[in-house]
């Protein structure tokens, strides 16, 4: 698969570092994201994920669930 991409860099010197940089960047971003997401407490997650299920309407007709 890389054969499609590698030729772009054939004529350039000193670009080997860029793929490494992008890999590291992406790695950091996703690991950070993972940490951030895992940091949220279970209780909090339960609370927010139940948001669509809350029903605060006051109509009497609306009880045929």
């Amino acid at each position, binding site marked *: 698969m890389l054969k499609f991409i590698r*030729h*772009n860099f054939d004529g350039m010197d000193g670009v080997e570092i860029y793929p490494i940089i992008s890999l590291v960047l992406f790695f950091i971003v996703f690991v950070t*994201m993972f940490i951030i997401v895992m940091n*949220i407490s279970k209780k909090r997650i339960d609370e927010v*994920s139940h*948001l669509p299920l809350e029903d605060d*309407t006051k109509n009497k*007709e609306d009880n045929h669930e």
Partner: protein
Amino acid sequence: MEKEQFYYDNKIVKMFLSATILWGIVGMLVGLTVALLFVFPGLLEFAGSDNAISWLSFGRLRPLHTNAVIFAFVGNGIFTGVYYSTQRLLKTRMFNDNLSRINFWGWQLIIVAAAITLPLGFTSTKEYAELEWPIDIAVVLVWVVFGINLIGTILKRRQRHIYVAIWFYIATLVTIAVLYIFNNLELPVTAFKSYSVYAGVQDAMVQWWYGHNAVAFFLTTPILGLMYYFVPKVANRPVYSYRLSIVHFWSLIFIYIWAGPHHLLYTALPGWAQNLGTVFSVMLIFPSWGGMINGLLTLRGAWDKVREDPVLKFFVVAITGYGMATFEGPMLSFKNVNAIGHYTDWIIGHVHIGALAWNGFLIAGMIYWLATKLWKTELYSQKLANVHFWIGTLGILFYAIPLYVAGFTQALMWKEFNPDGTLVYGNFLETVTKIIPMYAMRAVGGTLYLTGFILLAYNIIKTAKAGSAVEDELAEAAPLKKISGKRIAGEAWHTWLERRTVLFSILTTVAILIGGMVEIVPLILVKSNVPTIASVKPYTPLELEGRDIYMREGCNNCHSQMIRPFRSEVARYGEYSKAGEFVYDHPFLWGSRRTGPDLHRIGGKYNDNWHFNHMMDPRSTSPGSIMPRYTWIIKNDLNASDIEAKMKGLVTLGVPYSDKEIANAKQSIVEQANTIETNLRQDPEFVKNFGDSNIQNKEIVALIAYLQRLGTDIKVDSNTATAIK
């Protein structure tokens, strides 16, 4: 804290819901009509075959179908769901009732304007952005109204944390605004005519950055928002993983925006941009499938409900369709797969999995469920909804599978060589007539799907009649207590972000801008990305008029102008297309589907008479052709009164017409038209039938001039090269 009472605006939801159903039927009917034109090219020649009706020709109806389905059907469907769920998720009425009404009526007016102008031939030809500049401005205004209304509602909410569905709505709002404005930057030359400010390769890049992300941020992110609200709501259980939804959201919006160039693989777009597009398109499968899994697994432990509730059935097929389409997308972005799929019906099949299953079924499920809530009654007929589900599903299969077969068949025929090195199917038409039965089956699939949708309309009307609408629904919730804008102790970072809506929107904007900037800015600023070719000259005034006719008739809907550097294409069409050949093309006309052959090197391939007869009746020169007749181009006088304005406009955009050329434009038109007329007179048949009809004043000569010019700038070069040898 004491609770406040307030009313949800159900009326606006109902209005959008009705519009969704109405435009859904219209959009699908137009779709079915154009599908039938593949099988019966003469279907709409109501005024006789010598009198084809311009506004009923395929090239003008196809954009009407795509725009109607995307912006009228799905657009209204999105607004329906957004207006319903936003109010409930934020526990408040919409920010301003008047803005809601302006959003609704403005959007409908735009649709009507599109439905009138597109068949009349007012088009910018850029796919899914065909509307001409006055309507573009209206779209932006209405979108701003929607934006103020949405943000205003978020700001006056009674629920501190904005739920994941709302994030997707915010991403939609911001990104569509950015995309729409940048892709539609055009210079008006008359009241209903404009030229794209970008040319050739750059225009193509901006267009597909838009085109791809219109799919992403108009047909995907808002629908995902609806999924995150309605699937849990209907199944009555929370989303499978809220954590996954956070990862899903950020990675999806960040990666999506880079993927546009996969629409331009093997074209004259610089290789680095193509490869960037491929890499990000392949990565895209992870967030896409993350979302799909999150949607499907929300139903874990509730599969018994799926058996009984038609709404959930629609949702399951919709999400599965999303999974299929987002698997296919990355696969088609591999260059070697794209080499087969691009320009074929495979792509049409692919997008319809997205349109019919993912968008159409999610909206259908939502409509059935909303009807019971809005009219406070049971659905008129569960049975009918089930029938809709089954014939709709069958319709999707009957639509997509024949087109997959057609796509592969045609691609393989295009590429097949004889042992002596010549093409087996040298005549393009053979590869078209071969797949006509597939087109017929596709029309059957479309009919099934439309029938199902009409059942939905009937079912909803009956439900509405039986129920009683509550236009303002009473609700109560506690108002928000003021708390610090800073993170409070123990508050996770993303939890904090979820209540900082302005910051959230800014970060979203940053995420979507990065990819677009990296791809587009170098292409526009770095000159060496588009090598110029000395022999490439601007079009003559007559050719320019011809090009405008080509655009008006939507020829680009069926004919590409981009020969890929493959042996099979060079053998069939001639030298492959170079980036430098398109530097005066405002807009680019590369096309995306070859229902007919590529036209980039059509210039000089046939004589003027061939083109004349071909436009008059394509079947006379090419038996079995499914191209429409363009008799009106032969009858209509060429109106070149705006030629100076057009040329001046192009000068502003960088096309080097001299003042003298502009001043002599009309004279130049007469001269070039007379030459073509003289050429045409060499055919005695022409003299017999059209000898007295002043053909040099007709639109056809401009079109012939343009077609004969296409691709010849560098052909001249190679001829001289051979001569020197």
